[in-house]
């Protein structure tokens, strides 16, 4: 065990990594100080891109929402890889599977709600028209 290892146990198991653990990829691009700086830079670029996409009028108005969603997902990916140190290595299987299940539920809740409620709204249209008069 190196002295740079967070883990106090004498026999740290090296086949599972905690989410956010620094040790697992400090030799790789996404690890260490360079990883944080890279992630910070990418996140800044993606944030600026989001503001430009929403405000500049460079993008066809109905497509802005798609551009913003794509940029947001990209930035979340940057955070997961460079800040939370999520990798696709076998030591991260548990972390990635838990995340995948979380994303599944989130998509189900958000898209399901929007889908159902727009249909309800659609069916309610004549009523709304009467109420507004």
């Amino acid at each position, binding site marked *: 065990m190196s002295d740079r290892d967070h883990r106090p146990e004498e026999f740290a198991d090296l*086949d599972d990594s905690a989410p956010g*653990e620094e040790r697992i990829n400090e030799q790789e691009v996404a690890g260490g100080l360079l990883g*944080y700086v890279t992630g910070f830079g990418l996140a800044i670029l993606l944030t600026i891109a989001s503001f430009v996409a929403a405000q500049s009028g460079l993008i066809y*108005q109905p497509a802005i929402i798609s551009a913003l969603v794509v940029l947001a997902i990209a930035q979340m990916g940057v955070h997961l890889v460079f800040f939370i140190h999520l990798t696709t290595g076998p030591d991260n299987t548990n972390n990635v599977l838990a995340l995948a299940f979380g994303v599944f539920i*989130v998509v189900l*809740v958000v898209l399901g709600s929007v889908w159902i409620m727009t249909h309800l709204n659609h069916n309610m249209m004549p009523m709304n028209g009467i109420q507004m008069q």
Partner: protein
Amino acid sequence: MSAVSGALPGAISPGRPDPHRLGHGSGHSHGATGHGEGGPASKFVTVAYGFWIFLLSDIIMFSAFFAAYAVLAKEIAGGPSGVDLFELPRVAIQTGLLLTSSFTCGLGSLASHRRDMVWTQIWLLVTGILGAAFLVLEVQEFAGMIEEGAGPSRSAFLSAFFALVGCHGLHVGMGLLWLGTMIAQLWVKGFRADILRRLQCFNLFWHALDIIWIAIFTLVYLLGASA
């Protein structure tokens, strides 16, 4: 080993060893979990994994608030809409503050990895100051909106807005309290194993808050101000 010596294609010269030793599931010198050998995972892994599960369930809770906001965003009941209310320069500053605090929080994690008390405390303090500045801007925004008569009771849109953004702000506030206790614990107890586990959980929490803020500033503010 050079190619000239007629090495078989399978004979790859050993460069940096594969950290995961793929394809060598058994026969480790150390205890290997996940293979029915070596006992349970270390406490550091189980604690951080448990906290990861909590964070994901927290994000699922946020997804319900997002769903409510997405459904109600157009229901302004004749009141002000996002275009009238949202000030993007403020949101840009808030985003910069929270993103930078996430970065400094990571630098603090690296410093704690080096067992460098001074820099760990400095980066944690910077993280706290940036988080507090974020919160001040958000409270200012809320106070201004309520003063204009655009409080949470004005319309379904504003109820959903205050619930979603306020819930994130509440998380940031709780995170700041936690950060204060982490600074104190580190100061008094040093780099003890249990303190480091708590610090690891705090780092995960803070990064997760920034991930939720990404969704808020794009889907609520940018979309609301452009539509």
